[in-house]
C-alpha cells in the first residue's frame, strides 16, 4: 500500500468526519434495530471516539498494519467494545456490524472526492482491507470474551460439584453429580485424597446417584479414584448404582469386583459403620410407646 493512499484516506475521513459519523450511526441503528436513548448516546460516543482514534492512526503511519503500535488504541477500543457487547448478550454479527457498517459511509465520501478511477479503486481496496481486519479483530475479541465466560463457569461448576463431606468419624462421602471426565476425575481425586489426609478417614463412600451415565471411561475413572484412595490406606465403597447402570456395567464388561458396591448410600453407610465398629440403633423400646402416647 502506498503512502499517498493512506494519507488520502486519512484526510478524506478527517474532512468529512461529521457526515461519516452521522451516516455510520444511522447504518448501525438500522442494522441492529435496537432503540433506546441511553444506548444511542452511548453508541454515538463510542463511534465518535473510534473514528477519531482511527483517523489518528491513519495519519501516523504510511503503511496500514493494524497489528502495529500506532493502532494499539484502536485495538484496545475494539476489544473493550466487544467484551462489553459479549457480556450484554449481543450476537457476534451485531458486534461485527459496528465496524462493517462504517464501510458504506466512507465509500460514499471516497466516491465523491476522488475523480481518478484507478485511485478510487485503490482507495476502496485499502479501506476494505482495513475495515475487514478491524472487523475480524472485533469478532475475535468477542469470541475470546465469550470463551472466558464459559471457562469461568466451567471452573465454578467444577468446584461446586465436588464436595467431600464427613458423614461420621472416619467415614467420608463423595456425592458425585454430573458426568465424570478426566479433568473432573482429577479434581475429585485430589479433593478426596486431601480430605483423607486431613480427616484420617479409613473409608470413603463414592455415591454416583447423580452420574447420568456410566461407560467404560467413567468406570475407569472411578476405578482410578478407588485405587488412589487405596494407596493412601482408605477403602472405597461405591453406592447409588441405579438398575440401568448396573445393566450397562455388566454389558460393557466393566470389572467392579475389587470394590464394594451398594445400591444406596444408606446401605453403604451401614457397611461403613460396621467396618469402623460403630452402630446406630433406635432408642430402647420402652421410650418409644411413651412418645407415641404423648403425641
Amino acid at each position, binding site marked *: 500500500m502506498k503512502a499517498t493512499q493512506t494519507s488520502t484516506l486519512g484526510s478524506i475521513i478527517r474532512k468529512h468526519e461529521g457526515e461519516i459519523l452521522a451516516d455510520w450511526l444511522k447504518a448501525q441503528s438500522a442494522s441492529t434495530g435496537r432503540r433506546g436513548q441511553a444506548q444511542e448516546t452511548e453508541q454515538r460516543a463510542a463511534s465518535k471516539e473510534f473514528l477519531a482514534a482511527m483517523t489518528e492512526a491513519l495519519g501516523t503511519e504510511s503503511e496500514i498494519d493494524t497489528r502495529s503500535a500506532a493502532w494499539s488504541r484502536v485495538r484496545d477500543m475494539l476489544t473493550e467494545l466487544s467484551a462489553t457487547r459479549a457480556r450484554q448478550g449481543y450476537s457476534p454479527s451485531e458486534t461485527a456490524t459496528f465496524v462493517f457498517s462504517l464501510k458504506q459511509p466512507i465509500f460514499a465520501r471516497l466516491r465523491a472526492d476522488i475523480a481518478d478511477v484507478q485511485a478510487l479503486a485503490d482507495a476502496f481496496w485499502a479501506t476494505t482491507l482495513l475495515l475487514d481486519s478491524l472487523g475480524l479483530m472485533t469478532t475475535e475479541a468477542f469470541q475470546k470474551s465469550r470463551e472466558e465466560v464459559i471457562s469461568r463457569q466451567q471452573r465454578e461448576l467444577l468446584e461446586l460439584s465436588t464436595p467431600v463431606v464427613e458423614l461420621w468419624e472416619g467415614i467420608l462421602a463423595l456425592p458425585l453429580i454430573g458426568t465424570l471426565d478426566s479433568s473432573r476425575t482429577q479434581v475429585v481425586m485430589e479433593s478426596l485424597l*486431601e480430605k483423607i*489426609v486431613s480427616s*484420617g478417614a479409613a473409608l470413603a463412600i463414592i455415591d454416583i446417584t447423580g452420574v447420568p451415565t456410566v461407560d467404560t471411561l467413567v468406570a475407569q475413572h472411578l476405578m482410578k479414584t478407588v485405587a*488412589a*484412595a487405596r*494407596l*493412601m*490406606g482408605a477403602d472405597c465403597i461405591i453406592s447409588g448404582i441405579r438398575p440401568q447402570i448396573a445393566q450397562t456395567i455388566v454389558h460393557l464388561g466393566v470389572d467392579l469386583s475389587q470394590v464394594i458396591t451398594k445400591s444406596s448410600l444408606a446401605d453403604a453407610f451401614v457397611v461403613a459403620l460396621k467396618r469402623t465398629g460403630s452402630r446406630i440403633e433406635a432408642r430402647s423400646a420402652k421410650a418409644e410407646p411413651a412418645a407415641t402416647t404423648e403425641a
Partner: protein
Amino acid sequence: MERIPILRMGRFLLVTIQVDMHDQLALTLQDDLTQRIVSDRAKGVLIDISSLDVVDSFIGRMISNIAGMSRVLDAQTVVVGMRPAVAITLVELGLDLAGVRTALNVEKGMALLQGAQS
C-alpha cells in the same frame, strides 16, 4: 556407603525412606530387609514413604518387590504415609501396588498389622 535404616518395633520392622532411591540403594535395602526378617523372625514390615515427594515407577516396582519377598518369608508389608500427589501419580502410571496393604500413617499401619496378627 549410605544405607536405609531398618528399625525393629516388637515383631515388626519399620523402614523409613527419606532419600532419593537409586538402584544400588534399593538392592541394599532388599538385602538388608530380607536378612532382618529372617534373623528377627519379623511378622510384618512397615514402609513409611511420607517424606517422598516423587515416586516413580522404579520405586513403585521396588515396593512391590519388597512386598513379594516379605510374603515369601511370611511377613506382611504395609506401605504407609503416601501423599495424595504420589498416589495420583502412581495410579496414572498404572501401578496400583496390588497385594500391598496400605495405611494413612505409621500408627494406623501398626494397628493394621497387629489386627492381622491377633
